[in-house]
């Protein structure tokens, strides 16, 4: 019997999602025994032309991580969509836009300016910038071009399932593979993780007060953090109440507040706005000035509430003047 073919690919990604596959440790052997990995650029020497040569829909499942922000990534997303029966957006970047999605506060020009010119650690006296065509010694190469706007995978191609996390845990990956192999998948479009808020599965949930009012928000480096007590009750911006569970509260167990990488539950449209609303409501003051003072310690609202989800939020990007 031929084994189902599986592909892994990365787009605008940090490599962390690839680490999840490696972190399967011995269990990767079970996966390899059950499936045939036909494409995995980070570990195996396959090329784009190998994928192009495959018949359409011949890949049973493709796990694609990373956001889409270059012409090449867009092409690869279309190619892998065509070749795969099931396409999974793997990790926050592919699902929600992720950390690279914060580039939607800028545009291509300002990103390139910063990275190639202004950045203090750069020496680039000739002001060299990436360009689409490069010719040297009679050879010519075409480079992909950066987009103005970072996109989620499902803003480019049709996506069947989402595996959340930055990165997803090996357990979630294994469960997704097992569901695919066993053919017991939820309806198309589902997020392959529990549909409850993180607080539900948090070991500190019993110390989370029903009624909480705060006069101060602290950042982790400003606080001596109690290891038992709910982090929100300690004035830390723990995104647990507005974030999907499934990570088993890894960050909280490491005594760090949740930053929201699992994205919203199915009942929330815009997790950033929801979290903003939840935290603002906790402010223990009715006086405008005082409210401003207390909320002032949230230095970067977009970076805090949309750390992983700006491209998939209602506004998607910073406004570009027409």
């Amino acid at each position: 019997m031929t084994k189902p073919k599986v592909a892994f690919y990365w787009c605008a990604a940090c490599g962390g999602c690839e680490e999840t596959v490696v972190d399967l440790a011995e269990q990767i052997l079970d996966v390899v025994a059950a499936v045939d990995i036909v494409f995995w650029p980070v570990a195996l020497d396959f090329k784009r032309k190998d994928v192009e040569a495959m018949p359409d829909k011949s890949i049973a499942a493709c796990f694609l991580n990373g956001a889409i922000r270059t012409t090449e990534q867009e092409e690869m997303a279309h190619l892998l969509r065509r070749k795969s029966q099931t396409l999974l957006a793997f990790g926050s970047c592919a699902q929600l836009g992720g950390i690279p999605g914060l580039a939607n506060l800028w545009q291509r020009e300002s990103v390139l300016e910063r990275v190639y010119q202004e950045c203090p650690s750069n020496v680039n006296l000739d002001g060299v910038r990436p360009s689409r065509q490069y010719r040297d010694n009679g050879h010519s190469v075409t480079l992909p071009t950066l987009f103005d706007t970072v996109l989620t995978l499902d803003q480019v191609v049709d996506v069947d399932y989402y595996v959340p996390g930055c990165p997803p845990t090996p357990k979630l990956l294994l469960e997704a593979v097992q569901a695919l192999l066993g053919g017991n998948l939820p309806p198309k479009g589902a997020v392959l993780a529990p549909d409850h808020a993180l607080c539900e599965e948090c070991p500190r949930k019993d110390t989370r007060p029903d009624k909480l009012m705060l006069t101060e928000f602290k950042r982790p480096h400003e606080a001596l953090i109690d290891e038992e007590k709910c982090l929100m009750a300690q004035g830390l911006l723990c995104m647990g109440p507005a974030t999907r569970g499934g990570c088993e509260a890894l960050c909280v167990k490491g005594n760090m507040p949740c930053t929201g990488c699992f994205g919203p539950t199915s009942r929330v449209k815009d997790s950033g706005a929801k979290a903003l609303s939840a935290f603002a409501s906790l402010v223990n003051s009715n006086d405008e000035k005082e409210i401003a003072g207390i909320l002032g310690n949230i230095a970067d609202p977009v970076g805090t509430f949309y750390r992983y989800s700006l491209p998939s939020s209602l506004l998607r990007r910073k406004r570009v003047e027409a």
Partner: protein
Amino acid sequence: MPDGNHGPFEPRIVAFFCNWCTYLASDLAGTSRMKYAPNTRVVRVMCSGRVDPQFVLDAFARGADGVLIGGCHPGDCHYQEGNYKMLRRFHLLKRLLAQMGIEDERCRLEWISAAEADKLKAAVNDMVEKVRALGPLHLAIPKEEFAEEEVAVS
């Protein structure tokens, strides 16, 4: 209504008015045949505290040029705390909107009681004029264009 593409720009303002105060003020303005700018689309909510920041973002994302929220005066909320909750959220929401490039004048919170039809009229007229001066919001994601980079180096 003219939308800027066909004729002069007329701002579209989505207004979330509390059932117990600002909504009644707009009723009163109507029955007293008061004239004010016709640019608001009013959504009645039971309390300004019901205005989820998602509603505001959704309104902008769907083409509103401005969002006006009207609630009961401090101390007068029928649910005690609702308007204070809105006040707290409003502060953080405004900072978020600023980061997203949406000008201050496009989102406004007013306390207007059921009797203050005049205040409602003044607030709406003032907001419409300010948003008119800013022009349409245009939140569309710009099309990616690469042609100018097709030049060769070396």
